[in-house]
């Protein structure tokens, strides 16, 4: 009995000392983001770096203790770019405790909207459309509307056209695939070119709609030349227009091609396949670029070196595309929203509702990774500024303008 009492007393003493020496660490609140993206489907080369960017931005925030008391993590569902997989993906992320949803592609942002609204889970999506900005809504997106890219591109062309030298307005045309992006973009370009804002400054020559995944561009390329097109606004991803790029080069057609944000999708591959046919292409976009002096870009470059192997960087062509940078900036926007929510309700009480409240009045400056974003109760597309890029003779894109205000319809 004595031995038992002694033993118990000793155990109690040791336990007491242990408790004094190692007090329980305050456990951080976990904020889980459900990322809905294509990791192994047709857009995997775009989705993988983007997801890694989001993931690394969270890791970076955790390592820096960016929001004290909060630990960020993510769950991901690979939709393989199948529109029918969005609902299962949403329910999977919800089941894994996601308090915020981050769908990347437009079809996913649109499909997640009603489900998330029903469950009161905020959505920070990448792409926008008229459906995603329709209020009341729990959806906040980074990119502007597709037609706003068209307006901004035409505005930029007009601002940089040498009317004295040319003695006439620029001849502008648009081409796009027969899908949501192509139809919306080409129509947006036509509407803006004929609007009072640029009256007399633009000569709209027409638009061409081709079936999705078209490979033969001989007729459109010839027509555009016959129309004496100076600028061609392109409403499809560059990988789909490589034949057009090559025709333009081989036939020495003079028109310049200009894209919106989508102009750099899987750019590493486009460059490999199209070769120097990409020289002289232009983009009007909302994102920064590798090697630029902005602090946000420098931080992303450091994070990339810290968290990713050389093999990953090389195989995924991370430094040749915008995806990782954008993903990192996209993650930063979510971190800022959580930070604001935590400041208001305290880190332990941050939930979907608090994040939603924070998102309704938020300004995010990613310091050059993405154009600054503002979200309000009624304004749901984040980026307000765009920048022009040109592909230089060394096949690398470089910014050729400062950030300038987006032209909204």
């Amino acid at each position, binding site marked *: 009995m004595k031995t038992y009492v002694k033993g118990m007393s000793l155990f109690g003493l040791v336990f007491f000392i242990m408790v004094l020496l190692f007090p329980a660490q305050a456990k951080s609140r976990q904020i889980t983001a459900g990322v809905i993206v294509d990791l192994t489907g047709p857009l995997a080369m775009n989705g*993988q770096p983007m997801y890694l960017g989001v993931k690394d931005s969270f890791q970076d925030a955790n390592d820096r203790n960016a929001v004290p008391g909060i630990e960020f993590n993510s769950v991901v569902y690979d939709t393989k770019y199948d529109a029918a997989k969005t609902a299962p993906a949403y329910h999977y992320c919800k089941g894994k405790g996601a308090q915020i949803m981050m769908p990347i592609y437009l079809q996913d942002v649109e499909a997640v*909207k009603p489900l998330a609204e029903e469950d009161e889970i905020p959505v920070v999506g990448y792409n926008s459309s008229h459906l995603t900005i329709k209020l009341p809504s729990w959806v906040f997106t980074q990119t502007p509307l597709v037609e706003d890219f068209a307006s901004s591109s035409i505005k930029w062309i007009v601002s940089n056209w040498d009317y004295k030298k040319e003695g006439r307005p620029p001849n502008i045309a648009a081409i796009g695939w027969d899908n949501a992006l192509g139809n919306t973009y080409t129509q947006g370009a036509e509407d803006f070119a004929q609007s009072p804002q640029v009256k007399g400054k633009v000569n709209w020559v027409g638009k061409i709609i081709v079936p999705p995944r078209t490979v033969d561009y001989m007729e459109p390329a010839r027509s555009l030349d016959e129309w004496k097109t100076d600028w061609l606004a392109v409403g499809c991803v560059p990988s789909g227009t490589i034949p057009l790029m090559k025709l333009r080069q081989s036939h020495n057609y003079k028109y310049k091609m200009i894209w919106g944000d989508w102009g750099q999708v899987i750019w590493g591959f486009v460059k490999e396949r199209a070769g120097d046919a990409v020289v002289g292409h232009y983009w009007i976009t909302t994102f920064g670029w590798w090697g630029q002096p902005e602090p946000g870009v420098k931080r992303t470059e450091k994070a990339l070196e810290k968290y990713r192997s050389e093999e990953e960087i090389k195989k995924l062509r991370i430094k040749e595309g915008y995806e990782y940078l954008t993903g990192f900036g996209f993650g930063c926007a979510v971190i800022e929203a959580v930070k604001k929510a935590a400041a208001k309700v305290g880190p332990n009480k941050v939930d979907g509702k608090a994040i939603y409240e924070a998102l309704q009045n938020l300004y995010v400056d990613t310091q050059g990774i993405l154009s600054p974003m503002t979200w309000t109760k009624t304004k749901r597309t984040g980026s307000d500024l765009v920048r022009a890029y040109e592909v230089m003779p060394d096949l690398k894109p470089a910014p050729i303008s400062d950030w300038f205000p987006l032209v909204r319809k």
Partner: protein
Amino acid sequence: MLPGVFNTTYAKDMAIVRTKLQFLAVLLGLAFILTLPLYLNPYWVSFLVYLCITIIAALGLHILTGLCGQISLGQSALMGVGAYTSGILISKLGMSPWLTLPLAGLSAGFIGCIFGAPSLRVKEFYLAMSTLAAQFIIIWVIIHWDSLTGGSNGLYIPTLRLGTIKLGSGVKFSYVAIILAVLAIVGAKNIQRTRAGRAFIAIRDNDLAAEAMGVNLFRFKFLAFFIGCFYAGVAGWLWAFYMRYINPEQFGLLASLWLLGMLIVGGIGSTTGTVLGAILIRLLDMLSDFLATKLGELYPSVGAQSFSAFGLMLFGVVLATFLILEPRGLYHRWEILKAYWRLYPYSRK
């Protein structure tokens, strides 16, 4: 005592449930399925709904292709017709969602009949080509009639309500899906036992002989198209309320091919086989999603290149395996298993 249970009357031979044990099994099965959503997490509930929708669409194809022998590659687009009929009637006319259920089926049925008309003149490969045209034409019309359909941007669907109860897209909604799937299974089983069902089978086996026996080919082929597409329309209705957002990309050719694959894997011509095929293919699809996500996450640089189209490859391998090793599908294996136990201990492996 006879080793096993044998049917001694025609009525017994035709009955869906033939023994007390089977009746008990059906009751227990129903009880299991109806309580399933209560203990599943949101993802599995969502999977269950997805599975029910697939089963209904696949059963439609089973009636058309499995029973009547009319190959269709447009089942997914006809689901789209059902989904859009419902979406348009609700958003433009403010109609009750429940009222749009039969209308979704009817509209898909009628449009299916239009595209099924060539079946009176052509069959097999040529009919497949003609129904393939349906797949593309329907989607093209949906994309370009944007004042009505929302075009390539799609259409939002309000949440389904039962009186004041919001059914949402979770557990409550899963009961709607389960009930419709059970009704679809019972319907498909019964169609097989009717005069029309026997006419379908006669047409499938030899349409000339069927016509010589007095089967009206025109009537029964149209009927098969109508019923098969009606099922697709109902599946489309469910799909619209499950997704709460519809756009043309959800009803692509690949989905039609998957449905046809389910019939092959399950066993063409059998209702049970179709259900088994739908379950197996959907489970494989889900497995490939998980594997691809995990592999893609673990090995990002390899994932984007080597695991591309992982699900499609898996589907292709399963389909090829069944065609080579068990062309009669899962249903045949199920029949062998049942016969083994029925005749036990006199059965042979």
